[in-house]
């Protein structure tokens, strides 16, 4: 008889004291969101109207969908600057299909497949050839949007079928839009993927130390490739939504979205250096950005001035914890 030692219980995650939850990034974002919400409802009598609030969601759902996949990608230590260009290319391809007489299901399929294909192209360049993603995706950003410009020039595609309009303009129930429902479903799916599966754990492991992850048996290249595909896929879906909402395609569609998506991700507490972040944070950041743009829009503040607030918000929210720590550290 040999004494087998009782299996040691290793907790899946450390118990967190309540104080750490209160001082967490997400808590900070909740406070910011509530503050902006309160300011908005005082500043404009039209803000607390269910239809206004419903319009508000369109400001962030499309970018938010991409931000989930981008969050995983940035946590793994890579980045994709080509997402807006993927939207443009996918939208152009859908426009071409419309001219050829394609119906709504085919259009949606084309949008998603083009997005996935572009993501896979990025992923192959980064993982197979070992190139830095920031440069690769600056290149593919010009390439993808460039192809859209070659095809369209200064023209626009119109004439999307009526049933196609549902994705970007339809409502599932009362004021709850299809886009919002899709956003919430994606939030749950990505939350589960990142925080509750071994895949998510591997993503964090790669972001913290790719070499150690490799030696621990994590297929770093394959996982990064999958993440690029996911980002492309979400861009394709966003392209379907935007094209459906606007009802037309120009090569300049979604220009500058990539930086807004990344702002959303970083504001959500994802470390741009990789290895840390949460989906809840990204969801909150998406709400905050939507609230800021919509609230200022109700006050007739032009879009370009709103971008100042978004930029300031980004820097202040990142700088705040650093300054706070310094002050407490007595420096």
């Amino acid at each position, binding site marked *: 008889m040999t004494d087998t030692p009782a299996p040691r219980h290793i907790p899946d995650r450390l118990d967190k004291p309540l104080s750490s939850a209160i001082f967490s990034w997400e808590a900070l974002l909740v406070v910011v969101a509530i503050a902006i919400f309160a300011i908005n409802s005082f500043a404009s009598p039209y803000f607390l109207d269910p239809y206004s609030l419903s319009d508000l969601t369109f400001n962030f759902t499309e970018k938010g969908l991409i931000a989930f996949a981008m969050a995983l990608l*940035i946590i793994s*230590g*890579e*980045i994709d*600057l080509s997402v807006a260009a993927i939207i443009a290319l996918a939208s152009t391809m859908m426009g071409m299909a419309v001219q050829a007489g394609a119906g709504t299901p085919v259009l949606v399929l084309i949008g998603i497949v083009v997005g996935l294909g572009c993501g896979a192209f990025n992923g192959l*360049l980064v993982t197979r*050839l*070992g*190139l*830095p*993603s*920031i*440069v*690769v995706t*600056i*290149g*593919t*950003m*010009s*390439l*993808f*949007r*460039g*192809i859209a*410009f*070659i095809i*369209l*020039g*200064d023209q626009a595609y119109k004439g999307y079928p009526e049933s196609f309009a549902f994705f970007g303009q339809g409502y599932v129930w009362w004021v709850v839009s299809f886009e919002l429902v899709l956003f919430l479903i994606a939030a749950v799916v990505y939350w589960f993927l990142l925080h509750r599966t071994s895949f998510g754990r591997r993503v964090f492991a790669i*972001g913290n*130390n*790719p*070499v150690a992850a*490799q030696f621990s048996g994590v297929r770093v290249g394959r996982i990064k490739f999958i993440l690029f595909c996911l980002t492309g896929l979400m861009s394709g879906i966003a392209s379907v939504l935007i094209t459906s909402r606007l009802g037309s395609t120009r*090569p300049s569609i979604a*220009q*500058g979205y990539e*930086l807004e998506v*990344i*702002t959303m991700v*970083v504001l959500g507490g994802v470390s*741009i*250096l*990789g290895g840390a972040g949460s989906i809840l944070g990204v969801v909150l950041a998406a709400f905050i950005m939507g609230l800021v743009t919509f609230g200022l829009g109700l006050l007739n503040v*032009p879009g*370009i*001035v*709103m*971008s*100042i607030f*978004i*930029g*300031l918000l*980004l*820097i202040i929210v*990142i*700088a705040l914890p*650093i*300054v706070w720590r310094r002050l407490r550290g007595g420096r």
Partner: protein
Amino acid sequence: MTAFLKYREIWLLAAIAVLIGLISMRFPAFADPGNLRQVFNDTSILMILALGQMVVILTRSIDLSMASNLCFTGMVVAMLNAAHPAIPIPLLVVIALAVGLVLGAINGLLVWRLNIPSIVVTLGTLTIYRGATFVISGGAWVNADKMSPDFIGFQRAALLGIPVLSWIAILVIALFFVLMTRTALGRSIYAIGVNPTASVYTGIDVGRTKFIVFCISGMIGGLAGYLWISRYVIASVEVANGYELNIIAACVIGGISIAGGIGSVGGAVLGALFLGIISNALPVINISPFWQMAISGSAIILAVVLNARGERQKGRIILRKAEA
């Protein structure tokens, strides 16, 4: 000879020569010295900007706010000129440099003092500076008819048969060449990019040096602001929108490694020239200008594939963090 061929600048120069050769086979007028001078002049602003971006990238950082800085500073000098045409142009240039310096110093301080990654800081200031342009201008444009003749004519005046704009570019290239190869600061910039930790032990103040490179890129952005506005004679909020990525593209094509530490003044200049030649050649060879974007995108991918041989490594992240 083999050592000579190792320089990627040589290869880039050869690629440019081949490019010009191919174009001039069908359109001999393209290789005409007068036309090439014109191409150089057209590319001057991009070359200057690429040099400013280069010093930042060498220290493992990035400045995404250069085009917004250009837009803001350009608007400031254009409005000053419209309101007070009597201000002499050299003073306006100094003002442009100073305004750009302030904007760059803001980036630099946030990176240095708060240790926020440069990509985050400049992503924020990218939108802030462009938004600030709207605030100071109220969304109005400054058109050619509001600018003084000197303001527009200064960079077009010919000196020894070459426009002042080209001379400014040559001067800036010379200054950067001296900075990068003949000064301690240039050495520190390379050292930080190659190995930040070792740089600290050799007594280099990494944070302060980063602050300085952001000041440099800011001043360059400001200078380019005046040059851009007086060249295209319109100041608006939309000026150079998205141009920050063209600047980085010129650097990447010029062989400057985004991982820091690798790159040269010659590379940045040639990278910008490569893009300039393509944009000048397209109308000549009768290809729609809409092709330009896809071509430069392909050029970037090709350049990075070629550059990557030999500097492959495991464990890359978006921008390697320089430990201070």
